[in-house]
Structure formats: C-alpha cells, structure tokens
C-alpha cells in the first residue's frame, strides 16, 4: 500500500512511509514532509519545478530528495501539490539518481497556513528497505 504516517520524537518528528514500488515510496516520504510543514489540503499545481538529485545509496538519495523539496519551499516558497518521479536509478553503487517534477504553487499567506519550519532532513535511524510487498522508509527531520 502507498501511505505514510508521522513519527513522534521528543524534540523532532519523523516520517514512516510505505510504497508498492520505490518511486511510490519516495513520493509518500515527500507527502509526509509536506504534512509536517502544513496541514493545507488546498494547494494547486500552478507551477512545476524539475528536481534532480544524486546519492551514494538509497538512504542518502532519500535525504537529498527531501532536502531538495525543503530548499524549494524556503527559497522559491513552493508548496508542493504533486510529485511525479520520471526516473529512479539505484543499481549503481555510489551513484543513485532520481529525476522528478514537483508541481505546486507559491505560498500565499491569505490562503495557506504553515505550521512548522523544518531545519533539515537527517541521517538519524534512516532506513529505506524492501519488504514482502514493496518498500518502506523511515526518516527524521530536525525542527
């Protein structure tokens, strides 16, 4: 099943995601990140940004992917509405890659509400691993 839930931690928060395939997993983790930042459900896909990230392994790729979304939020004020993953390569050790398109709209204080500021996506207890039915991940963010 494709889903996510938020994990509780004394000072910070985490995301536990599941996906039927690896691409779905990375999308679910991104939805989890958005949920931490805002509970808004009315975000429209008015604009689109291409995203390309690289990592040593699928864990680093996850940290870099979510960090990229954080950067788009902070520097382009992009609230993401939808994520489309075009390519995902994890078979070359030391060179995992993800290319995606992130659709969303610019933060508008009259219509949107931001709940929390995420400082960074961390490597703490990071897990990205196959399960019997697909993939699961766990990632914590610093608030």
């Amino acid at each position, binding site marked *: 099943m494709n889903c996510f839930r938020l994990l509780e931690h004394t*000072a910070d928060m985490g995301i536990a995601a599941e996906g039927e395939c690896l691409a779905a997993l990375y999308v679910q983790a991104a939805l989890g990140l958005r949920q931490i930042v805002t509970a808004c459900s009315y975000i429209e896909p008015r604009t689109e940004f291409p995203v390309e990230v690289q990592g040593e392994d699928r864990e680093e790729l996850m940290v870099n992917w979510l960090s990229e979304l954080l950067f788009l939020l902070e520097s382009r*004020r992009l609230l993401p509405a939808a994520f489309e993953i075009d390519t995902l390569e994890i078979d070359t050790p030391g060179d995992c890659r993800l290319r995606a398109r992130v659709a969303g709209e610019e*933060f508008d204080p009259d219509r949107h509400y931001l709940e929390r500021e995420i400082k960074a996506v961390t*490597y703490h207890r990071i897990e990205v691993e196959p399960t019997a039915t697909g993939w699961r991940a766990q990632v914590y963010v610093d608030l």
Partner: protein
Amino acid sequence: MDVKVQQIDSCRWRIPREGAMRTDGLVFADRKMMAALQKEKSQALEQVRNVATLPGIVGPSIAMPDIHWGYGFPIGGVAAFDAKEGVVSPGGVGYDINCGVRLLRTELTVDEVRPRIEPLADELFRNIPSGIGSHRSDLKLSLAEERKMLTQGASWAVEHGYGRAEDLDHIEEKGTIKGADPQSISARALERGRNQLGTLGSGNHFVEVDLVEEIGDEQAASVLGLFPGQITVTIHTGSRGLGYQVCDDHLRMMQHAARKYGIKLPDRQLCCAPLTSTEGRQYLTAMACAANFAFTNRQLISAWVQESFERVLGKGPAAMRISTIYDVCHNIAKMETHMFEGKKRRLCVHRKGATRAFPPGHPDTPALYRSVGQPVMIPGDMGRYSYVLVGTQGAFDETFGSTCHGAGRVLSRHAAKKLARGRNLEAELAAHGIVIRASSRATVAEEISESYKDVLDVVSVVEQAGIGKIVARLRPLAVIKG
C-alpha cells in the same frame, strides 16, 4: 541498549570507559534526572558514550543536566578534541550553528512597562519578522554584502547603523569568529541566508520582555546592571537557513571524509574529520560564517527591539538606556586554550546545547564582568522563568569552561498538542501576567510549559556542581514567537 553509569556524587555520574570508548562519560544530573534518562528510549546516554569513541577526545565526554537526545551528539553535550590529533564534527555543533541567547538590560521598571505591555507585544511582533517566510522589506542584501557580513559578524550590523560599537564588547568573541571564509559556503547556503537575515524563525526561538523577579547574587547582579523589578529583553535565535545548510552540506562531505580517514562511526550523524584535514578546516571556516550570521541576526533584532520600545513607550534612548548585557552561543565549536592535567592544551571545544561559562579573571571574560565571571543566560519555558548565571573557575577546571543552556524538552510535539487541546492557552498565560504573540497556532501549543523540564532543576544541579552561579531569575511579561 543499557548504558552502565556509576554515581560519583549527588550531581555527577560516570559512564565508565569500555569497548570502543577512548574516555569516560561524565553526566551532570540529579538522581531524578538520571532515573528519567535511564528509562527513556531516546538513548541520550548512549550518545554520550558514542562521542567518547571519537579520535583525539581530551577529558571525558560531558553532558549537562539539560541533556536530551540530539542528532549524533546529545543536546547538552560538551567534548574537547586535541588540535593536532582530534576531530571536528558538524553533529557536535548542530544544525542551528551559533543558536544563542542575548540579554538586553533597560532602566525601565515593571510599573512603567506593564500598562503598555499589549501594544509593546504587538509592536515587537510587527517589527521583528518571525514565522516562516517573513522578512524585513528594508533589509535587502546583495551577494557581495552578504559575504562581507559573514566575514565581519555583528560589527557589520553596527557599521550599518544597527546598535552601537560598545555592544560588541559584550558578545562572545566580540560578535565575530575569526577565520570565516564565505568561499567555503555553498551557493545554496548563501541563498537560504540572504532572505532570512534579521528573522527570528519559529519553534523554540523567541523574543521575550522579562521582569527581574529575584536576585540570587547581589554583587554579580549589580556588576551586570540587574535590579529587582527591572525590565530586560531576551532574544533566542541562531543562523537560520544559512546555518542549517552549512551543517547539511558538511555532514554530507564528512560522511566521505570519515571513510577516507578511517574513522569508525557508531552513528552516521557523528561523522567528522581530523581538525588538521582540508575537510575539517573547511567546516570550521564555514561554521565561522554561520556563527557570524547568527551574531549579526541577534544584533539586528536588538536594534528593532530598541526601536519598538521607543515607539510604544514614547521615551528616548537616554531615558531607557537599553544595552546588551551579554550574547552567548550555545551551538558552536571553538579553538580554545585550556589547562588539562597540568598542561596547557590547544583544543577544539564542541558545545552543543551548552554554553561557554568562563570564570572571573579570564581574559575572554569582558572587562566589565571580570570580577564576577562571564554572564550566561539560561532560558526556561514561556510560562515560567529563565535564569541569569555567571561562569565559574569550577566550570573552567572541570567542563572546559562550559555549563548548561536551557530546560530541555520532555514532551514530544504531538503529546504537547494533545495536552493543549481544548485549552485557551492565551488566557492561561494571561492569568500569569504573560501576553503572547505567535504566527503559528501549532507553535504555541507545542511550546507549552509542560513540554519542558523545570529549568530551576537544571540550574540547581549546575550551581551545586559549581559549574555556574545563579545571579537572577527573570519572569516573562511578553513572548514573541514564530
């Protein structure tokens, strides 16, 4: 995993060296705190032990009584590394580089300010950008100017008309960490920083108008310029997105560096590089930039605090005499000279959620405070109180001149929100004479008093251990949050 601890006395515990540890752990805590630490699943004690495995550590891996779990190093952790044999670790500083506290004094009394506290809170909230995405429209930095600011620190702000030159004498390192090189900062860090200079941020960052409620040490209070019934202002913020990005960039680099230099890591977040390596030196120069950003940030916010007081109270600078008592970092790594086992040693002291607390007479304690020790500010929570301390010889001898930094969270955000549900938090605070302005409802709920330890318990351990001396207790009248 259970961590073995041995009680040394009523406020000290040893984690004896075993396995890959190169030294003991030393935890400052009372019996109740230690029982809670041993029960919790967050493994803060294990993190103290992990830090003890890092190469070149000098003295024990130390934890202050406000210890709680952090990424890599625990929050409340202090560790010193030999300048030649040791390492530097971004996880030993944290994401919010030079997160710190500035305390401003005024000549105003509670009777003068309380009747105007609501409009004052409104004005501070309007004048100081807080919350996500907000910034002052009158502060626009070119890339060249941003680089200059990162090199100069708080003196850049003074040069641009924010505050006065004498403020600099009352900031740790005089508001500028030397060796800052903006070339070592990524374009992304520069971009994240440019729009966020002069902003408070959200979460536990705040500006507070406080009242001096009780004096614990009359002589020190008088030297610091504190008196009962006085109005002070506390500013708690750091290096914002620029610092987070510097940490993030260098954590990534140091994952590779640790492998390259054959450093075995019990936790990926502990990644580090030798102080003498290119990666280590690069981190220190980048960290200095972020630290200078944070000093500048607090200098700018101080100027807007002064402006807000003038507007609302209709008094000029001469009548209010707002000035900086001190500004301390509580997330930093610094090259310092310490005596260790009778020898003078050059060390890189990591303080993550810990504050420098230099003793009376130390050349780095500002001249004005040299008879009493360096001022240290320990914020509590928004509903109770905060403390002003001074550094001691005990801290210099035992903890590389360090003490605690705050209360430390005990409730998760979810648990805090659950506890806050259905309550009128504004009215509860108002009943205690505290007004609050915040841009996020979630922040107020997540920051309720119950989320934190009682900071009195923390400073009591510190005082009993002789690594800090209580000077005054402050109580909030107005709290501004992101």
